[in-house]
Structure formats: structure tokens, C-alpha cells
């Protein structure tokens, strides 16, 4: 019992940390051509992302692996039901990854332009698809004992698309703030004004999402039953407002911290609302995948708990060390001087 609940919480934490970390990579990538005007700008942006994007993407691999190990039934059904969406997601993530590596390897404008587009698309599609997929999970998937009754098109329902839009706009703001902190001069200024301009759109989308969630999902049921839990979504809203406040005061690092917190709290809000479901069924409540009916045996859960209890703190330790090494903003002179640079 406690083991399954612990794993449910960890499952949520892993997705939250993944979206917080890869969120700014996706955000910066979606804004690649919009904020980056010259080749120098774009190279600087890639160099802010370069040292850390792979380590951030591993949180997704871990979230996937942990779903497999701790909730194998959820892993099996979620991944096979969302087959086509995940296929597109994989292609996008593959293209994105190689774009950063390949772009600098050929000094030709067409080559670079091609990879610039690949960076934008390769970051936009995952942001959108993760949003659409999670929106549909919040609503519940049309599944019963006979199997799954949805399709790729049925995922693109209004609520799914709205959640996709929420992810896209939230990650864009998050990414723009990251670039504000990690670059200098005009590029940093342009990033900051992009974040400021995008924030009202994010606010509108977030409000629409919160209202629509009441009609499209059962996420609020847990909150009505246990009102103190309301502190989680309230923190999400407070963090969202704090982004604007800090950004307007010219404190980009604080604003970036606020957008990180917003993402974590949005995920926490959703996970709290889903409990004890991992994936509810929209047509047959008895077929919902819960932390009880889809988990691994106590033996495996305990083993995996020991593994993450030992290794996640170590991982966080060395990741903080690496982020500290690369904490200085990337300067254009520095990138141009090093002919090995990306």
C-alpha cells in the first residue's frame, strides 16, 4: 500500500522534474529563429543548451523506465494505446538531438538553416504532444476490458489541444527566461521581452485550462473532498503570477525559478487530481489503471525504491555541480573564438 503510493508520488515527481528541465530546452528551441537573429545568436543559444540537454532528456528515459518497472501494466497500455503519438514524439526527439550536434559540422547556410528548422520543429512537437497526451490522460482514455477505442485523431480533442497549448506556452516562457539568464547584451534583452510578451498569452491559456478542466475531467474531485489540497494549485497560480512580477522587476533568475516552480506545481496539481489513477478510463471506471491494479510486486517496488533512494541524490549532486560549472552566461566572442565550439 504505502509502497505503491510512494511510487505514485515518485512517478509524478519524475515527470515534473523532466518537464521542468526539458521544458526550457524545448522552450529555447521553439524560439530558436524568433529570438536568434544572426548565426552568432543561434550558436550562442545552442551553446547555452549544449552542455545540459542530454542530461535533462534522461529524466524522460528514467520516467519511462520507472513506469515500466513500477507500473508495468500502465506502461504497456499507455505506450501501446498512444502508439502513433509516441512515434511522432520519438522522431521529433531524435531529430532535435542530432540537430544540435550536426548543425556546426558543415559551414553552409542551407545546411545551417535546415538544422535551425529541425531544432524548432524537434522542440515544438514534443512540447505539444506531451501536452496533448497528458490532457487526454487527465480526461481519461476510452478504454475498457475489450481494449482501447481511441485513435490519433481522437486525441486531438479540444481539451487535449488546450493542454498542448498550455505546455507550449509555458515552456516558451520558461525557455525565454532561461535564455535571458544565460545570454548577454541584445540577445538577453530580446529573450526577456519575448518572455514578457508571451506571459499574457500563457495566463489566458492557463485560466482557460483551469476552467475547462472542471468540465472535461474529474481532476477536481480530490480537491473538493480534501480542500487543504487546494494549496497545490494555488501555489501553481502564485508561481505563474510571480514570473511576471520578477520579470518586470528585471530579476530574470528569480523569474526563471518561478517558471520552474510553475511547471512542478502544474504537474503536482494534475497528479494530485489523478490519484489514485495513473490513467483513468473515460468509459468504464472499473478499467481505470490505478496505482493498485497496475503496479509491480512489493519485492520489485522495494528494490527499485532502494535504487532511486541511493542514486537520485547522487545524480542531483553531480547535476548541480555541472550546472554550477556552466553557470556563467555564454558570450558570442567566446563562441566565435573557439573554432571547435558548436
Amino acid at each position, binding site marked *: 500500500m504505502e509502497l505503491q503510493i510512494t511510487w505514485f508520488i515518485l512517478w509524478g515527481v519524475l515527470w515534473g522534474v523532466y518537464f521542468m528541465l526539458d521544458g526550457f530546452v524545448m522552450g529555447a528551441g521553439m524560439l530558436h529563429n524568433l529570438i536568434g537573429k544572426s548565426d552568432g545568436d543561434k550558436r550562442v543559444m545552442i551553446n547555452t543548451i549544449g552542455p545540459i540537454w542530454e542530461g535533462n532528456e534522461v529524466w524522460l*528515459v528514467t520516467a519511462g523506465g520507472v513506469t515500466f518497472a513500477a507500473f508495468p501494466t500502465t506502461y504497456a497500455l499507455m505506450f501501446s494505446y498512444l502508439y502513433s503519438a509516441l512515434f511522432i514524439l520519438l*522522431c521529433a526527439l531524435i531529430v532535435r538531438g542530432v540537430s544540435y550536434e550536426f548543425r556546426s559540422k558543415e559551414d553552409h547556410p542551407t545546411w545551417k538553416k535546415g538544422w535551425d528548422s529541425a531544432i524548432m520543429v524537434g522542440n515544438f512537437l514534443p512540447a505539444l504532444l506531451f501536452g496533448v497526451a497528458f490532457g487526454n490522460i487527465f480526461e481519461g482514455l476510452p478504454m475498457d476490458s475489450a481494449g482501447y477505442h481511441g485513435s490519433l485523431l481522437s486525441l486531438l480533442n479540444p481539451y487535449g489541444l488546450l493542454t498542448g497549448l498550455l505546455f507550449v506556452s509555458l515552456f516558451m516562457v520558461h525557455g525565454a527566461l532561461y535564455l535571458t539568464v544565460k545570454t548577454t547584451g541584445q540577445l538577453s534583452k530580446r529573450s526577456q521581452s519575448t518572455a514578457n510578451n508571451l506571459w499574457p498569452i500563457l495566463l489566458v491559456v492557463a485560466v482557460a485550462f483551469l476552467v475547462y478542466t472542471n468540465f472535461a475531467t474529474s481532476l477536481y474531485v480530490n480537491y473538493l473532498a480534501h480542500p487543504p489540497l487546494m494549496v497545490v494549485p494555488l501555489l501553481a497560480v502564485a508561481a505563474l503570477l510571480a514570473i511576471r512580477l520578477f520579470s518586470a522587476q528585471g530579476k530574470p533568475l528569480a523569474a526563471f525559478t518561478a517558471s520552474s516552480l510553475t511547471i512542478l506545481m502544474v504537474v503536482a496539481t494534475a497528479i494530485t487530481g489523478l490519484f489514485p489513477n495513473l490513467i483513468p478510463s473515460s468509459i468504464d471506471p472499473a478499467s481505470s489503471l490505478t496505482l493498485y491494479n497496475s503496479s509491480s510486486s512489493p519485492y520489485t517496488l522495494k528494490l527499485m525504491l532502494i535504487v532511486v533512494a541511493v542514486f537520485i541524490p547522487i545524480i542531483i549532486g553531480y547535476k548541480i555541480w555541472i550546472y554550477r560549472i556552466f553557470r556563467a552566461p555564454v558570450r558570442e566572442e567566446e563562441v566565435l573564438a573557439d573554432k571547435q565550439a558548436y
Partner: protein
Amino acid sequence: MDVLTLSRLQFAITSMFHFIFVPLTLGLSILTAYMETRYVITGDTMYLKMTKFWGKLFLINFALGVVTGITMEFQFGMNWAEYSRYVGDIFGAPLAIEATVAFFLESVFIGLWIFGWNKVSKKVHALSIWLVALATNLSALWILLANGWMQHPVGYVLRNGRAEMVDFMAMITNPDGLLKFGHQLTSGYTVAAFFVMGVSAWHLLRKNETDFFLRSFRIAATFGFFATIAVGIFGDMSAVEVAKVQPTKFAAMESIWESKRGVGMNLLLLPDPPNECNSVEGVCVPNAVSILAFHDPNALVKGLKEFPPELRPPVLPTFISFRLMAGLGTYFILASLVAMILSRWGNIQKQRLFLTLLLYSLPLPYLANFLGWVVAEVGRQPWIVYGIMKTSDGVSKSVSLSQVVGSLIGFTLLYGFLGVIDIYLLAKFARKGPDNDISSMIKPRGQEA
């Protein structure tokens, strides 16, 4: 074509593609780390140039290896949902541990290594590539323990309608997993050794940067010689293990139909599966198969006829792949031995014929890796988990034919496109040779701005 066949084809294509990049990563990470360590210890800038040159090729190769790995993890759930549901309790653990223990380490420190030349001390920088090498090798351990479990399931009970883990120690000490790990690791080192020797041979034939490529060649030849011998030893031990726990696979590898004691090895052999016999048999080495399988000349070897036809793997691909792989393995030992002797004590630059041979041998260890996996995976059929679950029972029920057709075409086109670009870039930078302007490489710390 049905969902099952296409899902198998897709898994084969995506894993083979992933596997163009993985073996080189396993070995080249170690060679690059060795070169950088020599630079740190001796201060000889030649080693720095070597680190940069081979490191660049390492990174171009590495990028595609990493991103195509995610497909592997996702595919178990996407195409093999019934399998994942049935064995996830025990099979999911090594994959999750791989991500947590190894993949994080690899991905975080590769970032430091690529972008940290002027940010950390030389020692810490060299340490970061060692951590990457350690992590890629550790990563292989967990993946191969997972595959080893599919070959020889241990440490589980069938309970609650699925396989549940009851003994983690049994899983991580499973000889099938550990021997595979040893065999695969050293095969990866072989790929890297022949890669470095092949590229070096190309330059030595053109008398480019002779000192640089001679030294690279020497390191690779020595590394390759020990690696290829180890491949053989682990391969022999693996064959013994297969004969013990997977008799159908072993019989198919050797194309043995009748159970017999003291089985000899026919050097000339052509299986005839429809008639359950071999159409050609000749040049027999007496008792060789019995010795190979059980280290006993009179040991009983079970033939395929002992098993009902529906439980036998496809004989022809298993047999041919095994033969070819073993032949190539023998060639690699001889070639790297000669390469080591000539480059250490002879005059390798003058051996143009041998250098040309090595240049064209560059793809062969890749081929041997593929063949080895054909033996392992095709030879396991019709089982997805040997003896407890059939491949046909593991495929997803909810996935439609059009979905798999779409993803199969999509992956093939995308992978084909990226593969061409990657090989083009590898060839381009391999031909370009080392960068001799090291002024931009060595900068004291803190003066980078």
C-alpha cells in the same frame, strides 16, 4: 504481413540501426579517455590532438546512438505491450536501473567533456571522459542482463498472471547476461580498434600525419588484439551456456538434426530444413561440436528433431550467422595480431597491402556484431522469453496494422536519412585529419573571456 511480423521487423531495424553506433561508442570512449590521460600525464600535445580528433568522431557517432536508444525503451510498450505487461515486474527493473545508474552519468558528463575544455582543470576534464566510458559500459551491463533474462529467465515466479521477480541477485548473476556482457563489450572494443586502425590506415597510405596516425594505429592494434582474444573466450563460454540452457538455439547454430554423442563439426555444411537434414556435409573435425558445447569429446548433443518443429528456431539464418561470425572473429584475432606486431616492431607504413586490407576491414566487426545478434535473437525464436512466453503472445493487441506500417516506414526513412548524414560527417572528419592549430585548444583556466 501482420502486426506481429511488422513489429518484429521494426524492432530488428531500429535495434540494428541503434547498434551501428553503440559498439563504437563502447570502445572509442575508452580509447579517447586513454589518449587524454596520456596527454594529462605527459603533457605531449600530440596526445591532445589525438583526443580532439578521435573525440570528434566519437561525438558524431555518439549523438545518433543516444537518441535512437530512446526508441528501444519506448518500443517495448508500444509494440510489445503484452510482453511488457507479463514480464514488466522483472524486466522493467534493469531498464530503469540502467537509466538511473548509467545513462544519467553518461549524458551529464558528456556535456562537461564537450563544452568544458576551458571550464575545468585538465584532470577533471579527463575524468569526465572516463566517467562517460564507465557509464556506457555500465549501461551495456544492464541492457544485457535484461536480454540475458529473455534468453534464460531466472529469479522469478509465475504469479498473479505474470512473471514476478523474487530474486534480484539471481538476475544480476545470470551467466547468460554476464557472458553476453563480456562478449558484447569486447566486440565493441573490436569495432573501435578496427575503426581507428582503418582510418589510420587510410592516412598512412597517403603519408598524411604519419607520426599521428602511427601512434593511433599502435594503440588501437594493441587494444584490438586483447579485445579480439577476449571476444573469443567469452564467445566460447557463451556457446557452452547456450548448449546448456537453450538446446534448440545451439542445435540450429550447428545445424544438428539427430541427437548424438561425440558430434563432429563439418567445415562444409548446408542445412536443408524442409527435409530436416543437411544437404551437404564434409571435412569433419571429429568430436569438435561436443567439445565446443560441453568441453567433453563424448558429450551428448541434442538435435533439432528432438523438438517439435513449432519450437525450433529458423535454422538457416541462425546457422549462417553463427558460422560467419565465428569466422570473422578468427580473422580479427589474426589481423590485429599482425597489426600489433608490425606497428610495434616492424615497419607498418611500408606494408601497403596489409594497410589496404585493414582499411576495407573497417566494416567487418560491425557485421560480426549484427550476426551475433541474429544468432541470439533469431535463435531464441519462437520464444520471446525462452521457455515461458512465445513472441507471438507478446505483441500489442491494440495496435493496428496501419499504425505499424506507418511507424515502420517512418523510422526506416528517418533513420536512413540520418544514417547517411552521420556516415557522411564521420567520413568527412575522418579524412580531414587532425587539427594542428592547437593554440585555440590550450587555454589557461579563467582566461577564456
